């Protein structure tokens, strides 16, 4: 019963901070919508310039195909040679595609022109994707030529994409962003929780009350966990309604996984709060931790890209497990049998963090 009064007090303190409320409940919704549109791995509208020095009809046909795809935005077509490097240096154009006639030994013009692509490699990701797109256009053109001659390639591959057939990056990013927002809100609130008591000198009064250390710990964590779960429910609704990403798996298991993750992240936040002396320090610690969690989570870049010597950091990062589980449930509709190992690892990390955090909290109050 005593803990009820602490939980009530925590809620009042959070809800009386009028500046904080929009950040807690409105900002995450705005963020998820913004992130949904901004954080994309799809590459579209790549600005290109075409220099067509070929008199061959094929070059015109290929240029037409480039113009008609949403992947490229043809800014300019010129028929005279230009300094392509200075065009790329200006930065408005990401690729210059040059068509030249090719000749045989008898100096007759060949059917297919010579094509050169100059890419701006500063954004290596966009460049490699754009190059892939362009090769795809060429391949399709050549295949259609072959089909016109009633011929077929001896080997033909067909790719069937499951779970996200349109390869929309929002389907992949959206559920991950739900986990990200859950981390941000919970970590920042938890890390400020105990240190605020130290700053306003109410910690001693709290400690001299009849509350036990575990009651104080739970009383501090519970309101933030409730706010985190409410926030997560809003975020999932936005992902499902606004971005029309259906949840294919079991929502209940998703929430159970989220609660296990929340316990880990709140324990970590409270650990920060016991270590630091001011809320400013807590903010810095949380910010640094959050960036590390995100970079090692597989949210933006696949964790397989991380060097093997640093893979252990992924393995101890609770966010990496939640993001994986959320994607499994959301996109693949997988049941617990597909990710129980991840859930077990997440639970183990949670037990470890909560043990360290509670023992540190007990040490703080019995200095």
């Amino acid at each position, binding site marked *: *019963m*005593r803990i*009820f*009064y*602490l939980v*009530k*007090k925590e809620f*009042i*303190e959070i809800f*009386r*901070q009028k500046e904080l409320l929009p950040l807690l409940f409105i900002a995450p919704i705005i963020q998820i919508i913004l992130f949904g549109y901004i954080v994309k791995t799809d590459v579209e509208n790549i600005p290109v310039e075409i220099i067509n020095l070929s008199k061959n009809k094929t070059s015109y046909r290929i240029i037409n195909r480039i113009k008609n795809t949403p992947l490229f935005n043809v800014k300019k077509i010129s028929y005279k040679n230009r300094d392509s490097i200075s065009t790329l240096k200006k930065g408005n154009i990401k690729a210059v595609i040059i068509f030249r006639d090719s000749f045989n030994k008898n100096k007759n013009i060949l059917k297919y022109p010579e094509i050169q692509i100059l890419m701006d490699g500063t954004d290596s990701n966009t460049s490699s994707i754009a190059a892939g797109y362009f090769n795809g256009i060429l391949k399709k053109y050549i295949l259609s030529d072959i089909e016109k001659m009633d011929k077929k390639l001896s080997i033909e591959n067909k790719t069937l994409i499951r779970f996200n057939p349109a390869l929309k990056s929002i389907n992949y990013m959206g559920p991950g962003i739900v986990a990200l927002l859950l981390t941000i809100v919970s970590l920042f609130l938890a890390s400020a929780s105990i240190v605020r008591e130290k700053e*306003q*000198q*109410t910690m*001693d*009064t*709290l*400690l*001299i*009350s*009849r*509350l036990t250390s575990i009651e104080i710990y739970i009383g501090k964590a519970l309101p933030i966990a409730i706010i985190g779960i409410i926030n997560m429910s809003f975020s999932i609704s936005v992902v499902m309604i606004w971005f029309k990403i259906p949840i294919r798996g079991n929502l209940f298991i998703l929430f159970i996984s989220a609660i296990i993750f929340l316990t880990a992240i709140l324990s970590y936040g409270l650990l920060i709060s016991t270590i630091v002396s001011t809320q400013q320090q807590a903010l810095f610690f949380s910010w640094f931790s959050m960036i590390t969690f995100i970079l090692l989570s597989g949210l933006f870049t696949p964790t397989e890209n991380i060097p093997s010597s640093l893979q252990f950091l992924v393995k101890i990062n609770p966010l990496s497990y939640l993001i994986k589980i959320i994607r499994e449930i959301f996109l693949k509709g997988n049941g617990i049998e597909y990710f129980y190992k991840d859930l077990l690892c997440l639970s183990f990390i949670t037990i470890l963090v909560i043990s360290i955090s509670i023992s540190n909290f007990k040490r703080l109050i*019995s*200095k």
Partner: protein
Amino acid sequence: MNNIIEVKNLTKKFGNFIAVNNINFNIKKGEILGFLGPNGAGKTTSIKMINGLLKITSGEILVNGMDANKNRKELKKIMGYMSQKFSLYPLLNSLENIEFFGGVSGLSRKTIKKKEEEIKNMVDPLLLRQNVKDIPPGIRQKISLFVCLMTDPEIIFLDEPTSGVDPEVRRNFWYEIYDLKIRGKTILVSTHNLDEVEYADRILILHHGDLIVEGEPGGLLKKHKKNSIEDLFKDAISNHEQN
């Protein structure tokens, strides 16, 4: 009178820094004991060790015959503590603070309601509904003392309870302390204001963690042939610094 608190060879170290250095004193039941000393003398540290908020480095504290270090849970029931800055939650109003502290101190809902009615007779109800950060320091002090006394503790620790309030509020506050003494409470009060110690039955002067003066204010003035506590205090500090 019996000793309710016995402090024996009490020492507190923070790393290499000695905050309290091997001090000995007793507090009798129903006594007002004044703790005097400049900033960093060890007053708050001593109070926090006695009420169980800080672990002792060495020595012994007996409260009601029980080892304070080993019986924290039991002793919480008989102690009240009003810390510096009055330690109320600034974003809660006074009634919410009273409900919270009553609740976490194990009082029943009925008792808390009764306490809320009690405070409404002592302080303007409009002020009680304002967030604590917006009410005058004198009212905050009154609420803080009220909160400290809600569980009807036997021993009351008041850590610089009159800092930041005007002389009239201070005087009224001391009347309340006297009233508590009459009701048989034991009070340990630390203060910066030398004129206040005349209210205490006995005083202790601490400096750099050492206990340098102990006794009844009147007796000490006679013994050291001083006209005021201020002179006695200055003399004691200066002698201790020279040694």
